[in-house]
C-alpha cells in the first residue's frame, strides 16, 4: 500500500447497519455513514440541530468542557443562521478576486521555493502549517507578519501530544482573539475583526462575543483541515508522479482533480448534531437530546454513489462529494480552501518535477470501532525541481 493511501474504515458498517457508534467523553455519538443518510440528516436542521444550549457539543470530539463561546454561524440554526451567514458570506468569497489570488500565489510560491531550496523538509510543520497560517492573513485581511505567531503555536490549537482536547491551549487562541478584537475597537481597519464589529446581523449590531464566535470558527475550522488537505496532496503527488505529470499536460482537469482530492481526503471526518426529538437513522432509534454525526469521510466512499470509491480519479466528472459538508452549514471557508488547492497544484506542476516520501508517521483518528487515517503527524519529503 502506498504511503499516501487513505483507506475506508467505514465500509463494512456502512454496508451492514448504516451507522457506527462512538463514545465521546461519555456523550455517545451515533455516526451516520451512508451518503444519502448523511445528506438527509444534514438537510433536516429541525430534527438535528446545530444550536442548542450546550455550546461546543456538536463538535466531535465535543468541546463543551473547553469552550463557552458559540461559534457563528456554525452553532446557530435557521432562521437566525441566515442573517449571520449572509453577513459573512461575501467576505469569505473574496478568494475569487484576482488580487487575493495573486497574493495567495506569492505565499504558495514562497513555501514551494523553500522546499525546493532545502531539498527535503518535514511537510506538516515546515510546509502546510506555514502555508495555512500565511494564507489565513489574507482571509482575515491583516498583515502577513501576523502568521509568524500562529506558526509558533504549532499545528494544533486544541490538541497537545497527550490529549485530543487541551483547554489551556485553546485559551491561548481565545485570549489572542479577545486582544485582537480590543485592538480593532481601538483602531478600526479593513480587517475581518473591524468589519464584523461595524456590522449588523439579524437587525442587531454584532457584539464582541459574536465577533469572537466568528473568529474562533475561522481559526479552528480552517486549520487541521487545510493542513491535512495540503499535506495529503503532497503525499499523493509524491506517490503518483504520473498524476502530477497529467495535471501538467491537462491543466483543464484541475477543477475535477481538486474536488476529487477533497472527496478522497475528506479533511474533516465528521460533524455532529443534537436530536431535538425521538427519531431514527437507518432504522436505529435516536433519542431526543442525544447526538448523531454525519460522517463525511464515509459518505464520500459510498459505492452506491461513487464508482471505484477508493481510487483517486482525477477527471471524475460527476462527484457529489460532501467533503465540505452539505446543506445549511456547508463549509464557509470552502472558497478559500479551493483556491489554496488550485494555486498549490498549479505551482507544483510548474516547479516540481517529482517528490519522494523519505519517512512519515500517520495521523490516525481513534473513533472507537473505527480507526481512520486522516493524514500525517509528520512526513519528510524530498522535493526535486522541474
Amino acid at each position: 500500500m502506498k504511503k499516501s493511501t487513505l483507506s475506508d474504515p467505514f465500509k463494512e458498517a456502512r454496508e451492514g447497519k448504516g451507522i457506527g457508534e462512538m463514545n465521546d467523553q461519555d456523550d455517545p455519538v451515533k455516526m451516520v455513514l451512508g451518503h444519502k443518510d448523511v445528506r438527509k440528516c444534514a438537510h433536516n436542521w429541525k430534527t438535528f440541530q446545530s444550536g442548542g444550549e450546550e455550546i461546543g457539543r456538536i463538535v466531535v470530539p465535543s468541546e463543551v468542557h473547553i469552550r463557552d463561546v458559540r461559534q457563528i454561524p456554525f452553532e446557530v440554526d435557521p432562521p437566525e443562521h441566515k442573517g449571520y451567514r449572509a453577513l459573512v458570506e461575501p467576505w469569505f468569497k473574496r478568494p475569487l478576486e484576482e488580487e487575493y489570488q495573486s497574493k495567495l500565489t506569492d505565499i504558495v510560491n514562497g513555501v514551494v521555493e523553500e522546499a525546493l531550496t532545502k531539498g527535503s523538509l518535514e511537510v506538516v510543520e515546515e510546509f502546510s502549517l506555514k502555508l495555512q497560517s500565511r494564507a489565513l492573513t489574507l482571509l482575515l485581511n491583516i498583515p502577513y507578519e501576523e502568521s509568524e505567531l500562529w506558526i509558533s503555536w504549532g499545528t494544533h490549537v486544541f490538541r497537545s501530544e497527550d490529549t485530543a482536547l487541551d483547554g489551556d491551549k485553546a485559551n491561548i487562541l481565545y485570549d489572542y482573539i479577545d486582544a485582537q478584537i480590543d485592538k480593532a475597537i481601538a483602531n478600526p481597519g479593513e480587517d475581518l475583526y473591524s468589519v464584523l464589529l461595524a456590522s449588523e446581523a439579524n437587525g442587531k449590531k454584532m457584539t464582541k462575543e459574536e465577533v469572537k464566535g466568528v473568529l474562533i470558527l475561522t481559526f479552528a475550522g480552517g486549520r487541521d483541515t487545510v493542513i491535512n488537505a495540503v499535506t495529503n496532496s503532497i503525499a499523493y503527488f509524491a506517490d503518483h508522479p504520473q498524476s502530477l505529470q497529467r495535471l501538467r499536460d491537462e491543466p483543464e482537469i484541475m477543477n475535477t482533480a481538486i474536488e476529487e482530492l477533497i472527496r478522497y481526503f475528506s479533511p474533516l471526518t465528521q460533524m455532529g448534531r443534537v436530536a431535538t426529538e425521538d427519531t431514527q437513522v437507518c432504522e436505529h432509534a435516536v433519542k431526543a437530546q442525544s447526538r448523531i454525526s454525519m460522517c463525511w469521510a464515509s459518505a464520500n466512499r459510498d459505492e452506491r454513489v461513487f464508482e471505484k470509491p477508493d481510487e483517486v480519479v482525477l477527471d471524475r466528472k460527476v462527484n457529489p462529494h460532501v467533503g465540505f459538508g452539505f446543506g445549511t452549514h456547508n463549509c464557509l471557508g470552502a472558497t478559500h480552501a479551493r483556491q489554496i488547492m488550485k494555486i498549490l497544484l498549479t505551482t507544483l506542476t510548474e516547479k516540481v518535477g517529482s517528490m519522494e516520501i523519505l519517512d512519515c508517521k500517520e495521523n490516525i483518528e481513534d473513533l472507537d470501532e473505527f480507526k481512520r487515517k486522516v493524514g500525517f503527524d509528520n512526513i519528510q519529503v524530498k522535493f526535486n525541481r522541474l
Partner: protein
Amino acid sequence: MAKITFITSNNKTIETEATSGSVMEVAVKNKVKGIDGDCGGVCSCATCHVHVKEEFWNAVGEPSELEADMLEFDDNVSEYSRLACQLKVDEVPDGLILKVAK
C-alpha cells in the same frame, strides 16, 4: 450558438449567448445572481440550481439519478429543477429560459 436567458429571484432578466461549456459556466461568466458554481461543475455544491421554464422541460430533459439526489434536499425544489452545471450549452434548446432558484 445558443441563446440562454436567466431570470433571477429579484426578477432581473439576463440574456446570454454561448457556444460551449456548461450552462452554469455561462451564468457565472455573466455574473447571474444566485448562481455560484462553487464546485466548478461536478454536481457537489448545488449552488447552480435553476427552474427550467415549463415549455422547455421536455427538450432539456430529466436530471440523472445523482443530480436528482442532489436536488432532492435543496430548497425551493420544483418538478422543473435542474443543476445548471449538468446542462451542456450545445445540448440545450436555443432560446432556453431558466429561473434562478436562489
